[in-house]
Every structure is written in structure tokens, then in C-alpha cells.
């Protein structure tokens, strides 16, 4: 029964709506990227320094994504709302 349930999770997709909350799916992916990238870069894997370096990279990526999202929103707002008004 449990095996069938486990298999079913890979045979049928989850339901994920097109909502702002769906953007949070980026966080586990960024965590994976940060962990694997740092695992290839550090000389030795020790819990504290590794966790610190990974967290810094994770934070940097998330902040950069946030800044990129804000810049893109501003450009979209300018092109859609302000530019037509300026051109009359």
C-alpha cells in the first residue's frame, strides 16, 4: 500500500496554481545549487564553515533574484504605465 502511494507520487503531478506563493518553489532549488556548488569549491567539508558559506551563497542568490525581480517590475511599470503617458 505504502509502495503504491510512493509510486503514485511520481506518476501523477502535484497541483500548483499560478499564484505569487508558487514563487517560493525557487527556495529549495537555490538551496540545492548553493550546497552542491560549495561542495565542489571548499577544501574540506566541516559542518560549521560549510553551513556558513552555503548560507551566504544562498542569501546572495536570493537577494540578487529579489533585486532582479524589482528591476523587471519597475521596467514593466515604466513601459506599460508611464511611457504611454509621456508620449501623449
Amino acid at each position: 500500500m505504502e509502495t503504491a502511494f510512493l509510486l503514485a507520487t511520481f506518476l501523477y503531478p502535484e497541483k500548483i496554481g499560478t499564484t505569487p506563493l508558487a514563487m517560493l518553489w525557487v527556495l529549495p532549488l537555490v538551496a540545492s545549487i548553493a550546497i552542491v556548488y560549495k561542495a565542489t569549491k571548499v577544501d574540506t567539508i566541516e559542518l560549521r564553515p560549510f553551513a556558513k558559506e552555503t548560507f551566504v551563497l544562498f542569501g546572495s542568490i536570493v537577494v540578487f533574484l529579489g533585486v532582479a525581480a524589482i528591476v523587471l517590475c519597475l521596467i514593466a511599470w515604466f513601459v506599460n504605465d508611464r511611457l504611454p503617458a509621456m508620449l501623449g
Partner: protein
Amino acid sequence: MAQHHNEKVVLFTVIVGLAAWCVPGAGYYLLKEPKRGALVCVTVVLTFLIGLSVGSIGVIDKIGAKPWYVAQVMNSPAVMLIGNHVAQTRDRTSPYKVFGRQAEIGQIYTSISGLLNLLCVVNAVYIAHTRHPPHPGD
């Protein structure tokens, strides 16, 4: 003697690369770095499984999404088995069709995990090569 050494170095490097591709993190195990190997293995496999769980095995579409499939195969050759199974059912009722946001997220997760494993394969091969350099002049 030097040629024999170089042959062994090349063979070891190829074995490390193949092992790293077949099982994420296995290349680091062969290089006697079990912590790094375990970390890479857990992270890459978990990311891939999250992608499959979200989008189902239908996101591994070697006919309709070839560029994504190339990245997904970097996870392991075993992904080709899933790809073949999905491709065989494509023309019939196709129970694995997936659309929308879940398809996007599943595809991105499985492809990114494949590219992360590719990074680890290249890194493991590089470490194997630098630890056992071939004799110069051969």
C-alpha cells in the same frame, strides 16, 4: 613504465567520471572523499526526486522537450529508462501528460539537478587528474 602509469591515470580518470555520472557523488567516493560524495548524492537525488514528485515522470520527455531531456540525463543514465518508458506511452492514451506550472517546476528541478551533477562530474574528473598527473613528456 611511464606509459603504463599514464594509461592507469587515464583509466582511473574515466572510471571516476563514469561513476560520478552513474551515481551522483560516487566519483568523490572513489577519490576517498565520502563526506563530499554523500552531500552531493543526497542533494542531487533529492532535487531530482522533488522535480519528479511535483511534475511526475511526464516531465522527462525526450521527444517534446529534448534540450531539457539532455540536462536531465546528466543525473544518471537511469533517467534514460524513464525517458524511454514515457516515450513509449506517448502515442497511446499517454497517462503521463503534464502541463502548467507543475510541469515547469518539475522540468526545472530535474534539469538543474542534472546540471549540478554535471558540475560534480567535471569537478571529480579534475580532482582525479590533478592528484595523479600523467608523466611529462609522454
